[in-house]
């Protein structure tokens, strides 16, 4: 199974071409849709946190942004990740500016009952 002679051919080099952007992205999304789902969830939770003033929604939005960041593909736009982070942080900050009291833990109500 040994090769005889040098198989290398410098005249037959084919340069690497990144695959067509849109087709590749669609394929990548179908293979692993987690970052997209987390991005959308993060935005929904941020909106709920800001408008309905639910603090736990804002915190969840922050967690979703972190998950989306960890699963980013290089083809993805960094701006989207940064903007979702900023949105979730602003949701947390605004929720606590409006009402600085802490979230009442569920175990407190359970213990009381």
């Amino acid at each position, binding site marked *: *199974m040994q*090769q005889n002679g040098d*198989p*290398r*051919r*410098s*005249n*037959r*080099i*084919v*340069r*690497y*071409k*990144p695959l067509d952007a849109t087709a590749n992205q669609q394929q990548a999304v179908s293979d692993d849709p*987690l970052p997209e789902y987390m991005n959308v969830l993060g935005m929904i939770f941020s909106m709920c946190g800001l408008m309905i003033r639910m603090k*736990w929604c804002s*915190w969840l939005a*922050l*967690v979703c942004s*972190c*998950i989306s960041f*960890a*699963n*980013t*593909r*290089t083809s993805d736009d960094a701006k989207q990740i940064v903007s979702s982070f900023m949105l979730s942080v602003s949701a947390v900050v605004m929720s606590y500016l409006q009402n*600085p*009291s*802490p*979230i*009442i*833990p569920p175990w407190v109500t359970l213990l009381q009952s």
Partner: protein
Amino acid sequence: MKITRIFGFLAIILFCSSGFSAGAASDDNEFAEFEEDEFADSVVVTNAPDAKQEDRKSVPPIVQKDDFEDDDFGVVDEDESDDSEKIKEVDPDEPTPVQSLKFTDVPAHFRSNWASYQVEGIVVLIIFIYLINYIIGKTTNSSIAHTVFEMCRPTLEEQFAVVGDDGVTDLDKLEPTLKRDTDSTFSAWCSGRVNVHSLFLQMKTIKRQDLVSRVLDIYDPSSDKMTIKVSLEGGNDVDPLIFAVGEKKIATKNFREMFDLNSYVSEKKQVAQQLNLPATWQLYADQNEVVYSILEPGVVSLLRKHEEAIEFIHISDQYTGPKPAEGESYTRLPEPQRYMFMSLNLAKLGQDEESAAEILNLVFYLIDRVKKMKLSKDAKQKAERKRKEFEEAFLKQTHAFRQEAAQARKEEKTRERKQKLMDEHDPERQRRLEAKELKKEAKAKQPKMKQMKVK
């Protein structure tokens, strides 16, 4: 000038504020007349020194009563006592407005009350752990991929003129490097070899950087994989073959999903047994001769030796990618490519350099073997006939689809014409359109008869 204006504004503001304070003072003076009455009342009332303030508020109604009762001296004492009673009665009532005032609960400042922010603390801790895991997972994945690449690099450099091309850097300055696609995917593009257009090496590690994926991995474990996609140089002198062998699960999955495997090949159980392939493997090919010419005894022994590392091998001259999704179909057959695909288990491959080198050399051996392979005349004709039959069947199917589509379009057009006819208000135009319509229908019926006559 600006300074004078500012001073002017300040003066106005001060004047307004002094005016308000004067008003407030005058408010106080308005109650001056009642202060005398309060002194008189205060002699009588000894119990409620705080009631003075309440008196000021409630003075008007009481004062009015006093005004009435001051004239009747006989009644004054009683009235005074009544007043005192009333005041006493009012006194307990008066505080009620004060009691009804509710002080809002202002939460204690965070610094003095941080122990109650338990949920927030837990969430911050989770995020912190997630980020730590991200850093650790990313570094682990990177180190695994680079270690294996370092093992494979010498063999790749022997075989290819260019290893690790990014498509941008000048070839002279290019260093063999692994490209990072994501935090868990790495790739290298190699080119410049006989019989090969390009070799795309991709390493997909487990998503160690994502805690959620790690947790899901507990329930559905997966392993680090390396895939080698080789675009083979084609030509008329190369014989047709479609061949796939590998671990049962993966082989079956690919058999169902890949268009060429699904269309041309069948499972070769007996041949697999004859060749003494591992029991957990499955073999697919379009012809037995192809299997015998590729799976030589040496190749089989290597496959058995690295049974755990090698997951799946697929060689084809009709590669077109995966089947279209259910409900969809190609309108035209896609251009087939000569292609070789190999899936390897990264953990087993990276155990030692020797096994990595052996497996890679096996890949290059197979590439050259496929190029040199010569089928017998019968086998070659059979293969070409099969491909032609498949193509004709596909065209017939699409022809039927195309005919249906054309028929639908025709019907749509006649419907539109008839609708136009119905909507036409001008009787002259309507008559003309009707005549046209009749002509067209007559024409549509006629040619068939004409053709028959000619025949």
